[in-house]
């Protein structure tokens, strides 16, 4: 297939359709409306299920229903809508059925704004709902990567009977870039998974539920979820590395922050600074082991995100104060420019922090001081 100029939200939607999407249930919320709108046209065209629900609450529960039948189902939303979906996500995780969630983050908290943000990393990576469970969370940094992630997301969700979230921000959703869409998968495909609830024709009836009144039984369910999470951690770590071979310094960022940081890294290289970029692609499971490895040869890390240091906590878990770490964050829907990150790289090289220094605190002091100026 040829490369076309595609809008992020639309490319993601079409890629899901080509991956065999059976049902899309969603609700409008900026900056991901184009996903819903694309689906509203294409899904009925193809005779597949589509509903604009009464709200995100309705949408996620429609997804829950279809997921129980073994259908390939997804929804998409943005920060306040994801908050509304948290109940449904927990039920889906507790019932152990697969779904794909596209989460296009915007400025918050509360109604916030429609500008791009990464402020919901914790919300989804730590579960996205009540209870002990972990969705798989993948963070693309460009439209081709997002397109390639959609079939993968469905495959992972089904393989591990879990939620797979594709985590991006408003800028990726809105931007247009050349990308190549995959071929259309043969359709329809049967929903005949051995656990699916789809009418007990020729078999014993099945029940799918997330209620386990007996605590000891519920504990076993939780342990089962954790056991699958261990498998996921072993098999599904993904990351990208740029210019790390001879790097003394490593910038770490995911999604759009990582993409912008790449420009800064290239600019720094042009100035002779031996810096590289580590970009986690799976933010859950998080590539702790690789970050630990990088500790051995790195003089300092610069972590940059469009939030107040949420992925930074995961970095800290891996680094454990062994290597000086500096943090740079922008909040509330503000996106950093590459030259801001370049300035941070230069500051890190000129004045490396102490290894025990709290990177988030140090950044916050700087950010508050800048406000006062």
């Amino acid at each position, binding site marked *: 297939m040829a490369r076309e100029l595609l809008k992020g939200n639309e490319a993601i939607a079409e890629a899901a359709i080509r991956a065999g999407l059976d049902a899309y249930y969603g609700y409008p919320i900026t900056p991901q409306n184009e996903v819903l709108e694309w689906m509203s046209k294409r899904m009925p065209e193809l005779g597949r299920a589509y509903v604009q629900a009464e709200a995100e609450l309705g949408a996620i529960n429609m997804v829950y229903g279809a997921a129980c039948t073994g259908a390939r189902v997804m929804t998409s939303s943005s920060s306040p809508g994801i908050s509304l979906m948290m109940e449904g996500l927990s039920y889906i995780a507790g019932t152990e059925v697969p779904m794909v969630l596209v989460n296009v983050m915007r400025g918050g908290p509360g109604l916030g704004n429609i500008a791009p943000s990464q402020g919901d990393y914790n919300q989804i990576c730590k579960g996205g709902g009540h209870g002990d469970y972990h969705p798989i969370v993948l963070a693309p940094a460009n439209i081709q990567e997002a397109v390639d992630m959609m079939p993968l997301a469905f495959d992972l969700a089904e393989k591990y009977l879990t939620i797979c979230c594709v985590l991006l921000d408003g800028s990726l959703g809105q931007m247009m870039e050349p990308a190549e869409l995959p071929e259309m998968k043969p359709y329809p495909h049967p929903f005949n998974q051995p656990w699916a609830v*789809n009418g007990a*024709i020729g078999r014993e009836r099945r029940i799918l539920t997330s209620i386990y009144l007996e605590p000891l039984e519920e504990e076993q369910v939780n342990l089962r979820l954790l056991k699958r999470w261990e498998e996921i951690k072993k098999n599904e770590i993904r990351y990208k590395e740029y210019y790390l071979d001879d790097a003394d310094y490593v910038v770490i960022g995911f999604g759009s922050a990582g993409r912008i940081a790449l420009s800064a890294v290239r600019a720094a290289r042009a100035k002779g600074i031996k810096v590289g970029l580590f970009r986690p692609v799976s933010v859950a499971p998080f590539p702790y082991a690789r970050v630990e490895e990088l500790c051995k040869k790195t003089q300092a890390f610069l972590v940059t995100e469009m939030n107040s240091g949420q992925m930074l906590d995961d970095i800290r878990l891996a680094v454990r104060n062994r290597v000086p770490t500096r943090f740079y964050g922008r909040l509330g829907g503000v996106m950093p420019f590459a030259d801001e990150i370049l300035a941070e790289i230069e500051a890190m090289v000129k004045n490396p922090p102490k290894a025990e220094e709290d990177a988030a605190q140090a950044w916050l002091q700087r950010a508050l001081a800048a406000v006062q100026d």
Partner: protein
Amino acid sequence: MATLVTPENLVYARTRGLTDMVEHYCPGCTHGVAHRLVAEVLEEMGVLDRTIGVAPVGCSVFAYNYLNCDFVEAAHGRAPAMATGIKRVLPDRIVFTYQGDGDMASIGMGEIVHAAARGENLTVIFINNAIYGMTGGQMAPTSLPGMKTSSSPTGRDVESQGFPIRMSEMLCTLEGAGYVVRRSLHDPANIRKSKKAIRTAFEVQKNGLGFSMVELLSTCPTGWSQTPVASLGWLEEHMIPAFPLGDYKISGPVAALKI
């Protein structure tokens, strides 16, 4: 006499639409009657193996243990959305929700209105007993003015706690609704009418004639602090005037259905 117990003499036996499990409902709770009627109808229609039920949260959270078909468990109030999700990908299955007054008329108000508005080909069995059973007898959206519940201990005060909601009257205004009726389970004649209504509702779904709902006025002896038999009388005396029985929506195509 026990000598009458022969296969030829059998007039009525427990339906195959119910599993063998002992239902956990309080003695005399008409959830059991409603379950039995749904089970009988599905068995008589021969659709048990192509039916998917969506259980609510409430006393009937374990409905899936008692009705003998595929089942899923919904979050509180979300059954109509979950059922929509299922029916849209499996349009040839019979998909129904079974919901109480808290599940449907309180937390689930958004989901039920929109499922009806969209004309989803679903069947909703709505158990209205004017109280929250499972959580210990709190006020429900359908609790009557002056009704004493655990969260309206001096009686429902309409000034601060509002008025009961009449769901059948409300939903029947939606064009997507094909069959919306209110029946009662308080005596044999009304139980028979309820069964007919439930059968009609499932036939409406089978024929793709839009959203169907049967509201069943029901008792909650424990919540109402009455004996099972006295509860039937209380229902007749107090609930029927507040929630009149009748056919609220029968669309043209539904009226033309031959069952």
